[in-house]
């Protein structure tokens, strides 16, 4: 007899070659796709593979993205980029995306993901792939070595924490606010390395970039994966991304069965206010109104979390026809070149530039803290995922996390502002 299974269990069972799997058991899964970038990838993997005298198990299943150290800020970064490019050539990797955007955004954009897959990424925001109905999670470089050698990885079958959002978000409230609210409620390890699944009418109403924000910040909730069952919105995105029709044939089966054992939590999207996380934790979250006295010197719209097409549109809807307040520096680092081009065609980039934005490269930028970061004493409001002390600059930098709407409204008024006031 088969028991009702969660989406997580179904995805893991398929990858483990089993009819079903039980929560808590340790299984070995076949990896359908492994993604790594210029920081976690060749510079770390090549010496280890050489030492073992081993090769990558299946180069077609590997995607390399250069996004962390590009564009090079100094000679050390240039060296890392050179090693990455040289190794990509030597290994003859068929899928290399160089300086065209952030890994979690370009991976689905280029049609590498589809529902039912089991994937790993050499980056903690790899749960982003869960928005496409993939079981995807982040691993370190040494564990990636294990995957590269064997094509396999172990995991303990997780419980599912089902975040059920009914109602509909107000105009000016977004997926980022939903996530900050959940992280504030459950804490940075509230996901307990289990699978989180996002469901309900308010989730189904979200575009793919917005859903990616939910899955992406599952990392900040301490979950291993952040899943969303595929629907027509997913299919439309993937068809446009060039995923072949045969890979989208069985999509409806990748969902949590009725009666499957989940820990369900209920939320009402209609009553959610914009959320802000104060320094120095994404779990340090309150309603935007609590921060009305804070005057940011920098407004940053960037990263895989907060500079996708939908995020750029959100910021532009607030800033249209206006300029940011004196004393505020607005920076925009679109998450991918393609999304930036789409935003340009829609007039979104022009609105942002007319508002005074400095447009930065399509890379991880200040969010990773690996290159150019913020100056001593800066007060930053940012659409990124993490505000740890010392991450985006010196320990004296205070970073407030918020949605692109709230970042734009705060840049406009010169103090942290509820975007609904501006949009009204």
């Amino acid at each position, binding site marked *: 007899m088969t028991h009702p299974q969660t989406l997580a269990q179904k995805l893991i069972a398929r990858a483990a070659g089993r009819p079903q799997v039980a929560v808590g058991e*340790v299984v070995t899964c076949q990896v359908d796709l492994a993604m790594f970038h210029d*920081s*976690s990838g060749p510079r770390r993997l090549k010496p*280890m593979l050489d*030492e*073992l*005298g*081993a090769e990558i198990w299946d180069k077609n299943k590997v995607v390399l993205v250069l996004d962390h*150290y590009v564009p090079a800020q100094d000679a*050390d*970064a240039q060296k*890392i980029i050179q090693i990455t490019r040289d190794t990509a050539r030597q290994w003859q990797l068929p899928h290399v995306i160089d300086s065209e955007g952030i890994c979690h955004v370009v991976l689905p954009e280029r049609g590498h993901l589809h529902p039912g897959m089991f994937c790993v*990424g*050499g*980056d*903690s925001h*790899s749960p982003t792939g869960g928005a496409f109905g993939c079981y995807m*999670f*982040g*691993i*370190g*470089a*040494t*564990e990636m*070595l*294990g995957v590269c*050698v064997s094509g396999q990885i*172990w995991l303990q079958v997780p419980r599912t924490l089902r975040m059920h959002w009914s109602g509909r978000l107000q105009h000016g409230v977004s997926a980022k606010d939903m996530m900050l609210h959940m992280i504030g409620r459950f*804490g*940075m*390890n509230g996901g*307990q*390395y289990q699978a989180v699944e996002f469901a309900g009418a308010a989730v189904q109403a979200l575009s793919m970039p917005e859903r990616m924000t939910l899955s992406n910040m599952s*990392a900040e909730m*301490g979950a*291993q994966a952040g899943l969303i069952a595929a629907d027509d919105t997913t299919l439309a995105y993937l068809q446009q991304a060039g995923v072949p029709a045969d890979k989208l044939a069985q999509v409806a089966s990748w969902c949590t069965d009725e009666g499957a054992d989940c820990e369900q939590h209920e939320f009402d999207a209609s009553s959610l206010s914009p959320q802000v996380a104060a320094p120095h*934790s994404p779990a340090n979250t309150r309603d935007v109104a609590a921060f009305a006295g804070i005057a940011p010197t920098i407004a940053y719209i960037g990263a895989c979390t907060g500079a996708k097409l939908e995020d750029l549109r959100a910021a532009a809807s607030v800033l249209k026809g206006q300029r940011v307040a004196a004393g505020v520096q607005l920076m925009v680092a679109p998450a991918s070149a393609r999304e930036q081009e789409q935003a340009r065609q829609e007039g979104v980039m022009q609105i942002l530039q007319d508002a005074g934005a400095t447009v930065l490269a399509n890379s991880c930028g200040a969010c*990773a*803290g*690996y290159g150019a*970061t913020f100056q001593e004493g800066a007060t930053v409001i940012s659409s990124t995922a*993490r505000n*740890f*002390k*010392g*991450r985006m600059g010196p*320990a004296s930098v205070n970073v407030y996390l918020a949605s692109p709407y709230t970042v734009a409204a705060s840049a406009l008024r010169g103090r942290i502002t509820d975007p609904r006031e501006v949009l009204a």
Partner: protein
Amino acid sequence: MNPRSFNNARVWRVGADVDTDALAPGAYMKHGLEVIGWHCLEAVRSDFASGVREGDVLVAGANFGIGSSREQAAGVLRHLGLAAVIAPSYSGLYFRNAFNLGLLLLTCPEADKIEESERVALRFEGDTPRVIRANGQGLTCAPIPGFLMDMVDAGGLLPLLKQRKQG
């Protein structure tokens, strides 16, 4: 050295929610473990990097290692010679990285009882580690599966894969 047993290990205490940026700050990520080691934990405990010695242990609050997948955040503690980390809970991603690099993480619900600078010992009873405090009090930790301890015994996944290839 048997990684499953130590005596008289000096304790360094840090609080809850120690993140990977504190362990391996982004500004130094382009460098190797030696440079990262000079700056390890400087945002939360500035005397750590210069004062830590081979065989010491780090005792932390809940949610140790939250944040990034950068395994240097685990590797740096091995580089600095720590015998183990003792905490009530870890980021799941950090937990995997640590064992892959041969760093022993002890999941100890009562870690908060351990005091700064006290000396502790470690013993295994089967797959269950026990931390023994200076006052003789034993703190039972969560069992560690054999396949993870294999990596600790070998010094990490890479040496383990090498052993298996040669064996």
